[in-house]
Structures are given as C-alpha cells and as structure tokens.
C-alpha cells in the first residue's frame, strides 16, 4: 500500500532528476567530407546574380513538391522538405542549399545542396536519418536548375 502510494512521486522524482543519456562517442566524431562528395554537392554558375540562382532552386524544389522549411536570402540559404507517408510511419526528404559569391571578383555564384532522408514514428520522433548519396539525384537537380537558369541566359560554370 505504502509502495503503491509512493510510486507516482518516485517516478516523477526520478524523471526530473535523471539527465538524458549522453550521445554515443561516434556521434561526436566529425570529419570533413571527401572532395568527391563535395564536388557532387556543388555547382558554379557564371553570374553574380545570386537571387536568380536561388529563384531557380525554389522553382525546381516547388515543382517536385517541396515546401519551405527555412529560408534566409541574405545568407543564400533555403531549406525545403516534402513528406511521404508509409502506413503510420512518416518519412521526409529534405533539401538544404546555400549559395555564395565565388570567383576572383565574385562574378560567379556557387550553389551547394545536400539531400537527406528522415524517418519518424507515428509520434513524430525521429527514427533514422541518412544522406542521399546517389549521384543521379544531385545531377538531376542541377540539370533542372540549369534549365531554369538558361531561361535567364545564365550558364553553368566548370564543375
């Protein structure tokens, strides 16, 4: 009887007193990505019109069903995502991109994009995350951005 009365308070006390488990050591070990991976994520455009490159990216992402998660044009950042559902589980494809002036006199614009897949349980807790590594996904995205830019007479630079 005594134990039954104490149990809720003890559970509460333990819950309040316990710190979250520390992250696994491998989670904290960071290393630069390979030059090949970096090249796969990056394109250079022969324009200093960063907003034109961002607008082309928005057009491509929107056409593929992405909606904006975050954006800051002053820093050249756009984060877009689209949800897919499989039963009660939910997965999300996220595109994170950034532009910046490049070239000796800042006459080019560099675009760098990454795609990742995130999976959540029915309660919205993240279960898994993985980078999209298929080169075709990146090549396809850049091809579509280049088509958009071609409409504005902007050419892709050397890869």
């Amino acid at each position, binding site marked *: 009887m005594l134990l039954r009365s104490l149990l809720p308070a003890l559970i509460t*006390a333990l819950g309040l007193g316990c710190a979250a488990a520390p992250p696994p050591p491998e989670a904290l070990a960071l290393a630069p990505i390979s030059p090949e991976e970096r090249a796969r994520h990056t394109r250079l455009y022969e324009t200093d019109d960063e907003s034109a490159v961002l607008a082309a990216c928005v057009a491509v992402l929107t056409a593929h069903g992405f909606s904006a998660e975050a954006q800051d044009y002053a820093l050249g950042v756009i984060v877009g995502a689209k949800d897919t559902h499989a039963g009660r589980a939910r997965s999300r494809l996220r595109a*994170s991109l950034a532009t910046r002036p490049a070239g000796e006199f800042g006459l080019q614009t560099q675009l760098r994009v990454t795609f990742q897949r995130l999976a959540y349980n029915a309660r919205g807790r993240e279960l898994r995350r993985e980078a999209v590594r298929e080169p075709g996904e990146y090549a396809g995205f850049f091809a579509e951005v280049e088509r958009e830019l071609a409409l504005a007479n902007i050419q892709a630079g050397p890869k």
Partner: protein
Amino acid sequence: MTGRRTAGALALTALLATHAHAESPFATLSRGRAANAPLPVTRDFAAPSLEVARRLAISALQDLGFALEAANSEAGTISASRLDAHPLRLTVTVGARDEATISAAVVTDHAGTPVADPRPAEAFFSAYAAALSPPPEID
C-alpha cells in the same frame, strides 16, 4: 489511514526534494538553464567582413557533412545537423568582435539535449579556420 497519510507526506517530500531551494518559478528556470545548457564554445577569427564570415561558417558546416536547418542573417545564427545517422546539431552564431575580428560561438545538441563535450565545436573551428584561410598566392 495513518499509513496513507504518511505515504502522502513521503511522496510530497520526494517530489519537493527535486525542487529543493526553489525560491520562485524564475529561480527554478534559471537553475535549470544553468544545469542543462552548457555555455557556447567561442573562438575569435580574423575575417575580411562579417558577411563573408557568416557565408564561410555555412561552408564549414557543409564541409563537415552537415545539412543546414535554419539561418538568420540578422542574428548571424546558422543551425545545421549531421546528414547521417546521428541527430547532432550545431548552432553557430557569428558576430563582429571588432573591425577585423569576428567571434564564432557554437552550441551543440544531440536530439535536442545539450552536449557539453567541446569536440564537435573544435571540429567546426578547424573547418572554419580552413574556410577562412585565403588560398595560397601563385607566383
């Protein structure tokens, strides 16, 4: 009846023990913040301009295999998390120290739980220093 009353008193004591010395709700909040939120790890760098420094902070995060999550040019804050496997997030704030120096402050969390270990911040600073270094001049 007496047993139930004693049990209730003990339960209350156990609950209050977790909030000992709570002078006010704000004091409790402040103490919780001090206990749970480690101070940012900060380092100064020479940089040509604040805007370039912020853009290069984004590059440094991408160089480490992070995906951008949010950016705020007014606050100079960029959040990014690992592309793969672990929900480790770095939130970097880049501000001007003086005309030629910027200060970068890094806060780390893992699935929303603050991380006091400075290694991720140190890894960011290494990548950031490399991004800020001008390329060698060719004669």
